[in-house]
């Protein structure tokens, strides 16, 4: 049976149309929008300008929000790695029924809407919430948690943890458990075996998990929106405000494009490091 030369094109066309229509076209429109003039009285003009980019990159108000976005995304990634890696290790050493149960507990949050989870955290962290009530009982006084960067990071870590645990866990699954035992038998302490033998082999999982967590945290919207309040904005909430509050769409578009580019640059650079490492470790 001979195949029509058009067959491959026909086969990829649904995917291509979907990608073009839902990703590329809006992206191109956003780029165009970001260069259009804007006037508070007359709205979006039809001439082109670089003014929005100039303003975003020179105004300390915007720069501070970008800086906070990167900082909180980085902090979230770091905390996720510090909590997620040991968590995945413990999980991989658990016995049969418990392992599935705890895996479900870890993945469980993904089954709940991020908005619901954010509201949950705002109830816990509020001035009359459970955390402050507990601190009150311990006479440590009420602490302002809600609408702080701390609250954003706590909630982001909670949401992002599965994205760290799962790749690390997958990497651990591929590990021969006897390899760690072999290290002990050669005189390595538990810690030395972890550091010299287990860690290097799961580092790829850790690095790819970091990539996912960083990307998702840097563009997170619901959590900074609900737990950061009106004052503590992050990149995604800033874009939203430009569009919906200021109605300055071109400005919002310019910010969105800058965030996208920054994220892209950071993640690509990081990905190169990951791949170089993978080549060395696995060949």
């Amino acid at each position, binding site marked *: 049976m001979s195949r029509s030369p058009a067959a491959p094109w026909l086969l990829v066309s649904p995917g291509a149309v979907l990608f073009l229509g839902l990703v590329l076209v809006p992206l191109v429109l956003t780029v165009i929008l970001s260069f259009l003039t804007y006037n508070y009285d007359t709205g979006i003009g039809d001439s082109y300008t670089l003014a929005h980019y100039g303003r975003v990159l020179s105004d300390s108000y915007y720069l501070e929000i970008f800086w906070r976005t990167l900082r909180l995304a980085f902090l979230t990634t770091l905390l996720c790695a510090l909590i997620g890696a040991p968590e995945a290790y413990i999980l991989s050493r658990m016995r049969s029924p418990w392992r599935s149960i705890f895996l479900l507990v870890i993945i469980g949050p993904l089954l709940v809407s991020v908005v619901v989870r954010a509201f949950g955290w705002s109830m816990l962290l509020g001035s009359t919430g459970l955390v402050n009530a507990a601190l009150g009982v311990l006479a440590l006084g009420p602490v302002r948690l809600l609408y702080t960067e701390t609250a954003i990071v706590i909630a982001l870590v909670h949401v992002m943890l599965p994205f760290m645990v799962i790749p690390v866990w997958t990497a651990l699954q591929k590990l021969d458990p006897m390899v760690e035992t072999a290290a002990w038998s*050669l*005189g390595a302490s538990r810690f030395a075996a972890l550091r010299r033998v287990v860690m290097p*082999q799961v580092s790829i999982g850790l690095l790819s998990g970091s990539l996912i967590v960083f990307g998702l945290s840097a563009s997170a919207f619901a959590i900074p929106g609900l737990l950061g309040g009106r004052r503590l904005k992050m990149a995604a909430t800033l874009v939203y405000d430009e569009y919906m509050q200021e109605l300055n769409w071109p400005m919002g578009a310019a910010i969105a494009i800058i965030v996208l580019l920054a994220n892209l640059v950071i993640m690509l650079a990081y990905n190169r490091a990951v791949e170089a490492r993978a080549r060395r*470790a*696995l060949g």
Partner: protein
Amino acid sequence: MAFLTLEQVNKFYGELAAVRDVDLSVAKGEFVSLLGPSGCGKTTTLQMIAGLVEPTSGRITLDGRDITHEKPNRRGLGIVFQSYALFPHMTVAQNVAFGLEMRKVQRAERDTRVADMLALVHLAGMADRYPRQLSGGQRQRVAIARALVIEPPVLLLDEPLSNLDAKLREEMQFELRRIQRSVGTTTIMVTHDQAEALSISDRVVVMEAGCMTQVDAPYRLYEKPATPFISSFVGRMNRLEGIWWPNGPIGTVEVAGAMLPSEAADLPAGAAVTASIRPEKLLLHKAGEGRLNGNVASRFFLGGHWLFNVETPAGVIVVSMPNHGEEPAREGERVGIDWAPASLRIEASAGGTVS
């Protein structure tokens, strides 16, 4: 002089006794094999010596020191795992150097010791390769080098050859013995392959269902198996149920009406016995010239020797004959089987009654 001893060692997993009442003493420099079918507790025994499994009860001593509850990384024993468990992200040299690094051996000494060890296992040119770039036999050698470089008092091997193909396995058996001879390390090897255990060990320990049933030199194990299980597990064995009658200096076993001359035994006349004889102790003659006539039901050519299944009045008997370069009896041919009476061994049947 016992170097490594196990005294009344037990290991229970819940109700299941994986290892029961094991007593063993191994001399310095000895090569001992733990032989038994899958699930008989060989690995568990080895891991208790290694410190990877805690004995439920009993005592393990090494060179007079009680190590029963010592951590594996403090025992300093060399272990070769069934899967080799090499560090995949390290080169061959780094793998071998790992144990020395953990012992804080100086760089220069480390390098010479690693190089010496790689030369011993014939891997000198492979130092900078990664395990994934090696063949099964080479990985095996790396695992042995890594375990031996720390100069362990005891080397423990868990089914070290089971992942290799048949030809390589045979080569590695002798290689393993050569390496062990040249370093002189006391070695305990676990295997389920009787040929492997017999060919390279000083002594073989047979395990059945968690118990050690015989500890003997390979030759004696083969010639004088302590239990029916061992006689069929180690090599082939013809076993015939019969009744024993004294017959002057020798004996006679009556099997289904046939009278077979056997070794003498201290049993009452008419006792129910099991007679056993190895296939290679039997000779094939023309019909009527042997002690028992039969028909060749099937024969197999195994290169070095022939194997015959001969149907006789006493049952099917397996006969093995060296290949002398000419074709022996064919299938369907009538033959006579002969043997020296002393090689037909007699033991009272389990639960046998005196008739």
